[in-house]
Protein backbone atom coordinates (compact mmCIF):
# COMPACT_ATOMS: atom_id res chain seq x y z
CA UNK A 1 0.00 0.00 0.00
CA UNK A 2 1.44 3.36 -0.96
CA UNK A 3 1.83 6.15 1.54
CA UNK A 4 -0.82 8.35 -0.07
CA UNK A 5 -3.37 5.55 0.16
CA UNK A 6 -3.17 5.60 3.95
CA UNK A 7 -4.06 9.29 4.25
CA UNK A 8 -7.81 9.20 4.19
CA UNK A 9 -10.66 11.42 5.23
CA UNK A 10 -14.10 10.67 6.63
CA UNK A 11 -17.57 12.02 6.13
CA UNK A 12 -19.81 12.05 9.20
CA UNK A 13 -23.52 12.79 9.12
CA UNK A 14 -25.60 12.64 12.31
CA UNK A 15 -29.27 13.14 13.00
CA UNK A 16 -31.79 12.43 15.71
CA UNK A 17 -35.00 10.69 14.65
CA UNK A 18 -38.15 10.63 16.80
CA UNK A 19 -38.43 6.85 16.48
CA UNK A 20 -37.08 3.91 18.50
CA UNK A 21 -33.83 2.17 17.42
CA UNK A 22 -35.73 -0.99 16.45
CA UNK A 23 -37.61 0.91 13.78
CA UNK A 24 -34.48 2.55 12.36
CA UNK A 25 -32.80 -0.84 12.38
CA UNK A 26 -35.52 -2.22 10.12
CA UNK A 27 -35.05 0.68 7.69
CA UNK A 28 -31.30 0.04 7.65
CA UNK A 29 -31.43 -3.74 7.23
CA UNK A 30 -34.52 -4.75 5.24
CA UNK A 31 -33.82 -4.65 1.47
CA UNK A 32 -37.19 -3.23 0.40
CA UNK A 33 -36.87 -0.48 3.03
CA UNK A 34 -33.20 0.23 2.22
CA UNK A 35 -34.28 0.73 -1.39
CA UNK A 36 -36.77 3.38 -0.36
CA UNK A 37 -34.24 5.72 1.20
CA UNK A 38 -30.84 4.64 -0.12
CA UNK A 39 -30.54 2.43 -3.20
CA UNK A 40 -31.65 -0.81 -4.82
CA UNK A 41 -29.84 -3.69 -3.12
CA UNK A 42 -29.58 -7.37 -2.24
CA UNK A 43 -28.56 -6.80 1.36
CA UNK A 44 -28.71 -9.53 4.01
CA UNK A 45 -27.92 -8.91 7.69
CA UNK A 46 -25.07 -11.46 7.80
CA UNK A 47 -21.40 -10.74 8.37
CA UNK A 48 -19.43 -11.51 5.21
CA UNK A 49 -22.47 -11.20 2.92
CA UNK A 50 -21.56 -9.58 -0.39
CA UNK A 51 -24.15 -7.29 -1.93
CA UNK A 52 -24.56 -4.43 -4.39
CA UNK A 53 -26.04 -1.00 -4.09
CA UNK A 54 -27.35 0.19 -7.45
CA UNK A 55 -27.56 3.94 -7.93
CA UNK A 56 -30.07 5.78 -10.09
CA UNK A 57 -27.15 7.03 -12.17
CA UNK A 58 -26.28 3.47 -13.24
CA UNK A 59 -23.31 3.03 -10.93
CA UNK A 60 -22.95 -0.13 -8.85
CA UNK A 61 -21.25 -0.18 -5.47
CA UNK A 62 -19.61 -3.37 -4.20
CA UNK A 63 -20.39 -3.97 -0.56
CA UNK A 64 -19.65 -6.55 2.12
CA UNK A 65 -21.15 -6.66 5.59
CA UNK A 66 -18.33 -6.16 8.11
CA UNK A 67 -20.10 -5.76 11.46
CA UNK A 68 -23.60 -6.12 12.72
CA UNK A 69 -24.96 -5.64 16.21
CA UNK A 70 -28.74 -5.74 16.46
CA UNK A 71 -30.30 -2.28 16.88
CA UNK A 72 -26.86 -0.74 17.56
CA UNK A 73 -24.33 -0.89 14.78
CA UNK A 74 -24.06 -1.82 11.13
CA UNK A 75 -20.94 -1.56 9.03
CA UNK A 76 -20.25 -2.44 5.39
CA UNK A 77 -17.76 -1.70 2.67
CA UNK A 78 -18.76 0.81 0.00
CA UNK A 79 -16.45 0.31 -2.94
CA UNK A 80 -16.58 1.65 -6.45
CA UNK A 81 -14.30 0.20 -9.08
CA UNK A 82 -12.94 2.39 -11.83
CA UNK A 83 -9.98 1.93 -14.17
CA UNK A 84 -8.72 5.36 -13.18
CA UNK A 85 -7.50 5.06 -9.58
CA UNK A 86 -8.47 8.67 -8.96
CA UNK A 87 -12.11 7.78 -9.57
CA UNK A 88 -12.24 4.47 -7.75
CA UNK A 89 -13.24 4.41 -4.12
CA UNK A 90 -12.68 1.99 -1.27
CA UNK A 91 -14.57 3.09 1.76
CA UNK A 92 -16.41 1.76 4.80
CA UNK A 93 -19.81 2.97 5.96
CA UNK A 94 -20.71 2.55 9.63
CA UNK A 95 -24.12 3.33 11.11
CA UNK A 96 -24.31 3.71 14.88
CA UNK A 97 -27.67 3.90 16.65
CA UNK A 98 -27.93 5.37 20.14
CA UNK A 99 -31.26 5.54 21.97
CA UNK A 100 -32.18 8.97 23.33
CA UNK A 101 -35.07 10.13 25.55
CA UNK A 102 -37.18 10.99 22.52
CA UNK A 103 -35.93 8.64 19.85
CA UNK A 104 -32.69 7.55 18.27
CA UNK A 105 -29.47 9.30 17.38
CA UNK A 106 -28.14 7.98 14.08
CA UNK A 107 -24.52 8.53 13.17
CA UNK A 108 -23.17 7.62 9.74
CA UNK A 109 -19.44 7.64 9.19
CA UNK A 110 -17.97 6.92 5.79
CA UNK A 111 -14.21 6.57 5.90
CA UNK A 112 -11.64 5.98 3.21
CA UNK A 113 -11.68 9.10 1.02
CA UNK A 114 -8.28 9.95 -0.31
CA UNK A 115 -7.28 13.59 -0.65
CA UNK A 116 -6.86 13.06 -4.41
CA UNK A 117 -10.34 11.54 -4.78
CA UNK A 118 -12.04 12.99 -7.83
CA UNK A 119 -15.47 11.53 -7.40
CA UNK A 120 -17.08 10.63 -4.15
CA UNK A 121 -19.49 7.95 -5.15
CA UNK A 122 -18.57 7.07 -8.65
CA UNK A 123 -20.53 6.50 -11.78
CA UNK A 124 -21.87 9.07 -14.17
CA UNK A 125 -23.29 11.14 -11.36
CA UNK A 126 -20.93 14.03 -11.88
CA UNK A 127 -21.26 16.02 -15.05
CA UNK A 128 -21.07 19.59 -16.11
CA UNK A 129 -24.71 20.25 -15.35
CA UNK A 130 -24.39 19.02 -11.77
CA UNK A 131 -21.05 20.71 -11.40
CA UNK A 132 -22.41 24.10 -12.33
CA UNK A 133 -25.47 23.67 -10.14
CA UNK A 134 -23.11 22.91 -7.30
CA UNK A 135 -20.96 25.86 -8.20
CA UNK A 136 -24.04 28.08 -8.07
CA UNK A 137 -24.78 26.79 -4.57
CA UNK A 138 -21.19 27.37 -3.52
CA UNK A 139 -21.27 30.89 -4.83
CA UNK A 140 -24.59 31.60 -3.15
CA UNK A 141 -23.11 30.47 0.15
CA UNK A 142 -19.97 32.52 -0.39
CA UNK A 143 -21.94 35.79 -0.69
Amino acid at each position, binding site marked *: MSESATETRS*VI*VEREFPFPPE*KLWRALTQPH*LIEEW*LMKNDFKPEIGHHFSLRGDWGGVLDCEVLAIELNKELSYTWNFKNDDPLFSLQSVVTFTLTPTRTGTHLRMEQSGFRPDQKQ*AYGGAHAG*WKQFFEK*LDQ*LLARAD
Partner: protein
Amino acid sequence: MSIAHDTLFRTLADPTRRAIFERLCRDGEQTVAALTARAGVSQPAVSKHLGLLKQAGLVRDRHQGRQTYYSAQLNALTPLIDWTSDMTRFWEGRFDQLQDLLKRMDQ
Protein backbone atom coordinates in the same frame (compact mmCIF):
# COMPACT_ATOMS: atom_id res chain seq x y z
CA MET B 1 -10.61 30.80 2.31
CA SER B 2 -7.34 30.64 0.39
CA ILE B 3 -6.21 33.22 -2.15
CA ALA B 4 -6.65 30.64 -4.92
CA HIS B 5 -10.24 30.06 -3.82
CA ASP B 6 -10.87 33.76 -3.55
CA THR B 7 -9.65 34.47 -7.08
CA LEU B 8 -11.71 31.62 -8.53
CA PHE B 9 -14.83 32.71 -6.70
CA ARG B 10 -14.42 36.33 -7.72
CA THR B 11 -13.75 35.39 -11.32
CA LEU B 12 -16.70 33.02 -11.59
CA ALA B 13 -19.10 35.15 -9.56
CA ASP B 14 -19.90 37.25 -12.64
CA PRO B 15 -22.74 35.51 -14.55
CA THR B 16 -21.55 36.58 -18.02
CA ARG B 17 -18.03 35.43 -17.29
CA ARG B 18 -19.30 32.17 -15.86
CA ALA B 19 -21.45 31.62 -18.97
CA ILE B 20 -18.41 32.14 -21.22
CA PHE B 21 -16.38 29.68 -19.17
CA GLU B 22 -19.25 27.19 -19.14
CA ARG B 23 -19.53 27.42 -22.93
CA LEU B 24 -15.84 26.67 -23.31
CA CYS B 25 -16.20 23.70 -20.96
CA ARG B 26 -19.15 22.31 -22.89
CA ASP B 27 -18.23 23.12 -26.47
CA GLY B 28 -14.44 23.16 -26.43
CA GLU B 29 -11.99 25.63 -27.93
CA GLN B 30 -13.45 28.76 -29.56
CA THR B 31 -12.55 32.16 -30.95
CA VAL B 32 -13.60 35.47 -29.39
CA ALA B 33 -15.90 36.05 -32.37
CA ALA B 34 -17.68 32.72 -31.85
CA LEU B 35 -18.05 33.40 -28.15
CA THR B 36 -19.32 36.95 -28.78
CA ALA B 37 -22.00 35.66 -31.15
CA ARG B 38 -23.64 33.83 -28.26
CA ALA B 39 -22.64 35.90 -25.23
CA GLY B 40 -25.10 38.77 -25.67
CA VAL B 41 -22.39 41.38 -24.99
CA SER B 42 -19.90 43.24 -27.18
CA GLN B 43 -16.63 41.75 -28.40
CA PRO B 44 -14.48 44.08 -26.23
CA ALA B 45 -16.54 42.98 -23.21
CA VAL B 46 -16.02 39.31 -24.06
CA SER B 47 -12.27 39.95 -24.51
CA LYS B 48 -12.14 41.62 -21.10
CA HIS B 49 -13.90 38.66 -19.48
CA LEU B 50 -11.53 36.25 -21.21
CA GLY B 51 -8.58 38.26 -19.90
CA LEU B 52 -9.81 37.88 -16.34
CA LEU B 53 -10.52 34.17 -16.84
CA LYS B 54 -7.00 33.80 -18.17
CA GLN B 55 -5.51 35.61 -15.16
CA ALA B 56 -7.35 33.20 -12.88
CA GLY B 57 -5.90 30.29 -14.85
CA LEU B 58 -9.36 29.21 -16.01
CA VAL B 59 -8.73 29.62 -19.72
CA ARG B 60 -5.75 29.41 -22.04
CA ASP B 61 -5.29 31.16 -25.35
CA ARG B 62 -3.66 29.90 -28.51
CA HIS B 63 -2.78 32.04 -31.51
CA GLN B 64 -3.23 30.67 -34.97
CA GLY B 65 -2.91 33.02 -37.90
CA ARG B 66 -4.99 36.10 -37.09
CA GLN B 67 -7.25 34.19 -34.76
CA THR B 68 -6.97 33.59 -31.04
CA TYR B 69 -8.57 30.42 -29.74
CA TYR B 70 -9.61 30.07 -26.12
CA SER B 71 -10.03 26.82 -24.18
CA ALA B 72 -11.11 26.00 -20.63
CA GLN B 73 -8.53 24.82 -18.12
CA LEU B 74 -10.46 22.39 -15.97
CA ASN B 75 -7.55 21.73 -13.62
CA ALA B 76 -7.97 25.27 -12.31
CA LEU B 77 -11.22 24.16 -10.69
CA THR B 78 -9.60 21.47 -8.57
CA PRO B 79 -9.37 23.68 -5.45
CA LEU B 80 -13.16 24.12 -5.57
CA ILE B 81 -13.96 20.44 -5.77
CA ASP B 82 -14.35 19.00 -2.33
CA TRP B 83 -15.81 15.56 -2.62
CA THR B 84 -16.19 15.08 1.10
CA SER B 85 -18.70 17.94 1.25
CA ASP B 86 -20.35 16.49 -1.85
CA MET B 87 -20.71 13.18 -0.02
CA THR B 88 -22.02 14.91 3.11
CA ARG B 89 -24.79 16.46 1.01
CA PHE B 90 -25.51 13.03 -0.47
CA TRP B 91 -26.01 11.49 3.00
CA GLU B 92 -28.00 14.49 4.26
CA GLY B 93 -30.37 13.93 1.34
CA ARG B 94 -30.61 10.21 2.09
CA PHE B 95 -31.33 10.94 5.76
CA ASP B 96 -34.21 13.17 4.61
CA GLN B 97 -35.58 10.22 2.64
CA LEU B 98 -35.04 7.94 5.64
CA GLN B 99 -37.03 10.34 7.79
CA ASP B 100 -39.90 10.30 5.28
CA LEU B 101 -39.80 6.51 5.18
CA LEU B 102 -39.89 6.24 8.99
CA LYS B 103 -42.98 8.45 9.08
CA ARG B 104 -44.69 6.29 6.47
CA MET B 105 -43.78 3.11 8.39
CA ASP B 106 -45.86 4.45 11.31
CA GLN B 107 -49.10 4.24 9.41
